[in-house]
């Protein structure tokens, strides 16, 4: 069995180093995605669904903590961080493993051994993980992401300033993002994965790798079969597919 790995680290040399060390310490594992920032890490996670994610805490876009929050119990998470021992004391109590930068071989080997042992079980329990992440977010400085209120978009020959609260849903369209509102829709050049990181996750639910919907605009969710669902949106004819990863959002 070949476990699949995601590695997210923004500094090129540290990234290279971690990859080389992983290749030595865990030769049977396969790195399926290398991300340079948090947005790519989360988007890539949805695409590849790896078993383990090695996440730098401080990254551009979504921080490692925010990516871990979204991953929840879908994979094992190992944080890679240069925060000093004092700041990461919280880890020792928690459900998540961590590596201090620069990563040392023996420490990585220990983490890999622990991962191999845990592998047979499902990832750590969600409640403890959520608690730990909340604690870390308040304890570690500089890992908050700014929220956007307005988006500038061209509609025909006009440039519109769109209030994000009025958006019904966002949909990825290769390198563009389609923004659908009640009366019109617009295209912006920013990829959805980058827009997503600036939206409030409480109010904008991602229901598919390519779709983010405003919670206030959800009329209902319909079950299609055991695994598939779709969302009906107020004020729009379109029906939006919910991917397996996000079906849990609509469980009673």
């Amino acid at each position, binding site marked *: 069995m070949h476990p699949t790995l995601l590695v997210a680290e923004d500094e090129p040399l540290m990234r290279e*180093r971690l990859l080389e060390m992983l290749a030595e310490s865990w030769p049977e594992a396969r790195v399926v995605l290398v991300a340079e920032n948090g947005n790519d890490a989360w988007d890539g996670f949805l695409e590849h669904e790896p078993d383990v994610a090695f996440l730098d805490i401080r990254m551009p876009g979504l921080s490692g903590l925010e990516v871990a929050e979204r991953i929840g119990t879908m994979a094992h998470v190992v944080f890679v961080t240069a925060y000093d021992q004092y700041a990461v004391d919280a880890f020792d109590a928690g459900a998540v493993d961590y590596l201090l930068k620069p990563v040392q071989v023996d420490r990585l080997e220990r983490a890999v051994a622990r991962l191999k042992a845990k592998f047979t079980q499902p990832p750590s329990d969600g409640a403890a993980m959520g608690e730990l992440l909340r604690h870390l977010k308040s304890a570690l400085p*500089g890992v908050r992401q700014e929220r956007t209120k307005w988006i500038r978009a061209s509609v025909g020959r006009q440039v519109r300033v769109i209030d994000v609260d009025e958006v019904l849903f966002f949909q990825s369209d290769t390198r563009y993002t389609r923004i659908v509102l009640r009366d019109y829709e617009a295209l912006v050049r920013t990829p959805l994965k980058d827009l997503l990181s600036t939206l409030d996750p409480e109010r904008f639910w991602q229901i598919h790798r390519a779709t983010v919907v405003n919670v206030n605009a959800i009329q209902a969710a319909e079950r299609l079969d055991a695994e598939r669902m779709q969302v009906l949106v107020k004020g729009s004819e379109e029906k939006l597919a919910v991917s397996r990863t996000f079906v849990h959002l609509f469980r009673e």
Partner: protein
Amino acid sequence: MWRKVANWYREWEDEQIAVLEKPELASQSPHRFRRFYYGKLAERSPLERQQMRDFSLALKGWRGWLWTAAMFAVYALGGVALHLHSDLGWGAAILVANVCGMSLTFALISAWFNYRQFARKKIRLFKMVVVFAVFGAVTSTALSMWMQGQPISHAMERVSHFLTGVLIGSLVIMVPVLIVSVLRNRQYEVVNAQLQRENEQARLARELAESQLRLLRAQIEPHFLFNTLGAVQQLAQHGAPRAAELTSNLIDFLRSSMRDMRSEQVCLAAEFGLVESYLKVMQVRLGERLRFSLQLPRALEQVQLPTMILLTLVENAIKHGIEPALRGGEVTVSAEAIDQAVRIRVRDGGVGMSTIAEPDGGGGTGLDNVRHRLRLAYGDAASLRLHDGEPGLIADVTIPYVQA
């Protein structure tokens, strides 16, 4: 009875010393009048309270009584002299001498310890003394005449006669009191000014220590040090010549920041050198995400600037501008002479203004420290301004241009 008075006095004395030591106790006394009196004590300046406390302690308990008895004896002797030289009886002469002597003594003691009030409210004090004296003179004359059965209509002559005496008496008390309080006040102001100077110096030293500490923290900040060492390790493993280059930039940075730590001012050439080694280190780490350029005209190389200011701004540009930006950006550091000033500009092409307000323990306080040090070095002649660079942020430091 006697014991009761002694107890009361002892209690009052203890309370007064306690209030002088801790003015916040003033409002805790159960007696209304004492509360009022202690409130007045608490309003005095720390130095005055200190002086009065020393005095109260020196005269605490039997010493106070001993001194009072000694004064009584001295004034009694005065009374004897008064008796021999006038037609007053023994008892009356001793009483008059004691009343006058004690009043003068207490007035002088009050002036000695409450000189600031006395010196500040000279006119009011004088008016009060005169009003009380006239009131006392009129009522006591009227009372004695009524008791002796003389008609009140004759009173005016006697009052004016008596009044002259009373006014002379109050002047005899007022003049020494004023002299004492004015002299004491002058002395107080000298001491106070000296204390303030010492405070200011201590504050300067603290500011400097704080910025040195910041520099030390910047050097050993885990993100900086460990990430840089990790990069060195990675480069060294492959024997790349870049490892040697990165190490030598790190050495340059550490060495020149240690030099900064030892001095308060440094020339722009040296400070640009420090910033360049820092940016070179960061460029190896961040790769394509960081580009930078430095422009320092030769004429400005020797201009002096407080240490740490430029580095703090550049660190902020990296930390809040470049590192959080998905695609990075360019940092430009430049100096320019404008009229009689030198403008030093740090511009990053990364994330914009909104993130500066982020309360992250590093950014905000760094800028506060920069502003403080500019004010300490130049007063209002220097400034730090931030504005939107669209994209990114521009930080401008302007200092007076002093040509060598």
